[in-house]
């Protein structure tokens, strides 16, 4: 049995929804206290696309993500260690989460090969062969210094079938043990394992059970949000949360769009990350409760409303859709105006969910959310099914 360790995280459930599996909780990390459910914006290379940390604080963002693959390459772990860690380097004094680097490696590098030892790949600089092992990933993440770090997992694309999936699932467990052993800072960094198993319920169950045996501060659900159908997606999320302990946070990686967030909160997930809101901002798109505004479209040229009436972000307080329409395609720095709004939108959505769960009015929140987004009640079938599985039946008003 794994040794009991004191974790660098405390998770307190404030309220549980009496209808769905949703929870509203308080997660205390070394650098910040985070209300969950939480959405974590992605600041890939140690910066959130043109925003200074102050602007994130103004939005009351408590935790953001950094990518180990990118940071491990530039500026590199040694420089980050010398700088006093990523917090110090980028002047972000709240919480950070880093991923293991494995996913990007597999998705970005053509010649990645996975062996028991680790992920073998060709260095993008000089084509020499390199190896990312569980130990190596943890050491880099120890130097970056995030509050939450991820195990290196053997991640397979969600559409892969056959014995490879099972192999990856068992290897992920073995790699977790290696990560835990290599972890040099359990007192101030929380190492999360990642539940794998593809789209096979039995494998997901087995994986969750195994990971639960380890003494870890929280759990991530990985290998989803790839090319799988939404139908399969929600079922696997549901099984995963069924077999994970209640009293620890569940982080659903790579999710996502507003609808996905609402449904997966109902299915019992607490933490989310996705590049979507910041990426779509760079394409000139603004997220609102009634849908996405594609601002370069001519219909916005003389639209003098803010992106979202009532949104407290600095973009909505100062600028109109017409103005943003004018600059989105011309000034790259204008994207940061949209990034601020989209991040504000995501954070406000999570805050509203947290509050409604605390008030035990989450089903009403869900109905209202779907009504705004789908005024003709053409709700996506998968969302109807997923919510029905946790006792919420979307009504056509």
């Amino acid at each position, binding site marked *: 049995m794994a040794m009991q360790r004191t974790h660098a995280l405390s998770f307190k459930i404030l309220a549980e929804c009496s209808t769905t599996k949703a929870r509203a909780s308080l997660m205390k990390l070394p650098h910040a206290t985070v209300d969950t459910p939480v959405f974590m914006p992605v600041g890939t*290379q*140690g*910066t959130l*696309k*043109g*925003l*200074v940390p*102050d602007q994130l604080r103004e939005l009351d963002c408590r935790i953001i993500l950094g990518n180990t693959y*990118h940071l491990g390459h*530039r*500026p590199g772990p040694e*420089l980050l260690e*010398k*700088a006093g860690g990523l917090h110090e*380097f*980028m*002047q972000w004094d709240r919480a950070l989460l880093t991923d293991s680097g494995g996913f990007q490696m597999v998705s970005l590098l053509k010649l990645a090969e996975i062996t028991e030892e680790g992920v073998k790949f060709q260095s993008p600089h000089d084509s020499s062969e390199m190896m990312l092992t569980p130990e190596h990933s943890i050491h880099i993440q120890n130097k970056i210094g995030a509050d939450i770090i991820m195990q290196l997992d053997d991640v397979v694309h969600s559409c892969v079938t056959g014995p490879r999936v099972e192999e990856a699932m068992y290897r992920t467990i073995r790699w977790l043990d290696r990560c835990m052993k290599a972890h040099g800072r359990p007192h101030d960094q929380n190492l999360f394992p990642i539940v794998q198993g593809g789209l096979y319920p039995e494998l997901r169950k087995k994986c969750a059970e195994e990971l639960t045996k380890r003494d870890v501060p929280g759990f991530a659900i990985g290998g989803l949000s790839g090319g799988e159908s939404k139908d399969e997606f929600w079922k696997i999320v549901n099984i995963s949360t069924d077999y994970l302990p209640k009293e620890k946070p569940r982080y659903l990686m790579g999710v996502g769009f507003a609808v996905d967030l609402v449904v997966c909160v109902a299915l019992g997930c607490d933490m989310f990350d996705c590049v979507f809101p910041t990426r779509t901002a760079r394409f000139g798109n603004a997220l609102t409760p009634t849908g996405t505004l594609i601002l370069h479209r001519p219909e916005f*040229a*003389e639209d*003098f409303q803010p992106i979202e009436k009532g949104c407290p972000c*600095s*973009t909505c307080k*100062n*600028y*109109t859709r*017409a*103005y943003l329409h*004018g*600059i989105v*395609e*011309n*000034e*790259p*720095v*204008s*994207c*940061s*105006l949209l990034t*601020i709004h989209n991040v504000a939108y995501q954070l406000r959505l999570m805050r509203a969910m947290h509050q409604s769960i605390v008030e035990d009015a989450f089903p009403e929140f869900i109905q209202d959310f779907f009504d705004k987004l789908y005024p003709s009640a053409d709700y996506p079938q998968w969302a109807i099914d997923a919510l029905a599985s946790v006792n919420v039946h979307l009504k056509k008003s």
Partner: protein
Amino acid sequence: MRFSLRSVSHCGCRVGTLSCTRAVNDGENKEVETPLCTLYTKKVDMLKRIEKLPPIVNMHLSSLADYTEALNKFQHGVGQFTALQDFLVYISVHDTGIEIPSGYNTKAGTAVWNKAGKKLIEPQQFVKCQEAFRPTFYQALSDSDTDKNSGKKRAMKAVDRTLDFLDTILELHKKSERLRDVGVFGSVEGGFHEEARMRSARETAARNVDGFVIEGFYAQNEKNKQIDVEEIKDLCNKVFKILPEEKPRLMHAVWSPDQVVMALELGIDVFDSCYPWLVTERGGALVFSFQYHNNSENEREARSTDGFEISLKDKSMFEDFGAPVPGCSCYTCQNFTRSYIHHLLNTSELLAPVLLMIHNFHHYFEFFESLRSSLKTDQFLKLKTLILEQRPSQEPPK
């Protein structure tokens, strides 16, 4: 709009006050000290993190022309539209910080350029645009497509066209209710041909304009091309003898600090600030000193930089955890390290120009503050010496 010349120093520098009525909304009167530089805006939300912003923002017809319709419907003017309603708005014809292809102006109008391409603006359309923009003052449409190599005929053409446009514009401006309190600046053209220049100066001075834009020396078809005041000194002196001294003189250029101090002696009142933006674009941070009180022998030796800026792209910055410019009180230097900005430049992150812009504008605006205070206390020559001492030995990288 009124200008009162307070003093002219023995070296030729003018100190004055521009009094502008904000045409939109409050009709409030604002007084602005000259010499000053206008604010070159890159449409970011980070302006509030720069202290001591100039009170006048310089927008460009070239980028605004496409929004005439929308601004007409908006009705409240371009200042409010861009969330810059606290500023006085000056609209020039071109954007000094970009390259403009040569040879596209005609007798009927002037070609302006933006990312979408070329737009030929005629005087009537020009006035309609200004009515929609509702600035504090604007530069009348002009033909400035001349340079050192232009022939006399071309130079004269530029002068004549510009006067022609000016007359049409003034006529329409007079009749326009919306442009009632808005100022008009006439442009003095003429390339490097004395006869053309003199004609332009005389004729423009004879019109009822609120100030003068001196241009037509550099056709702007080479980005980053720095002005050389030495080259234009003689012609400018002759022009200024003709222009009324109680009207302000504005000049657009890539104003590096050494050129600024020389242009002040020439008698220029208003400059633009695209120079710090261009420094930002190339990953540079302005470091030049304008502390004329402290220019001792020791200080001179301590200055290790060659030139007015350092490059944050330089490999030596990789592990340098000092402030971009030690001792600088700006938001960027107070919070971030050279190493971090170097990393942002290296990874082409959007935050790099944002942080560098904050520093470079802060530095440049403080420089102008020190220019004004040196003139008030008769220490200008000390400042001029200090600035000229710091000239780079070679051109900065493009």
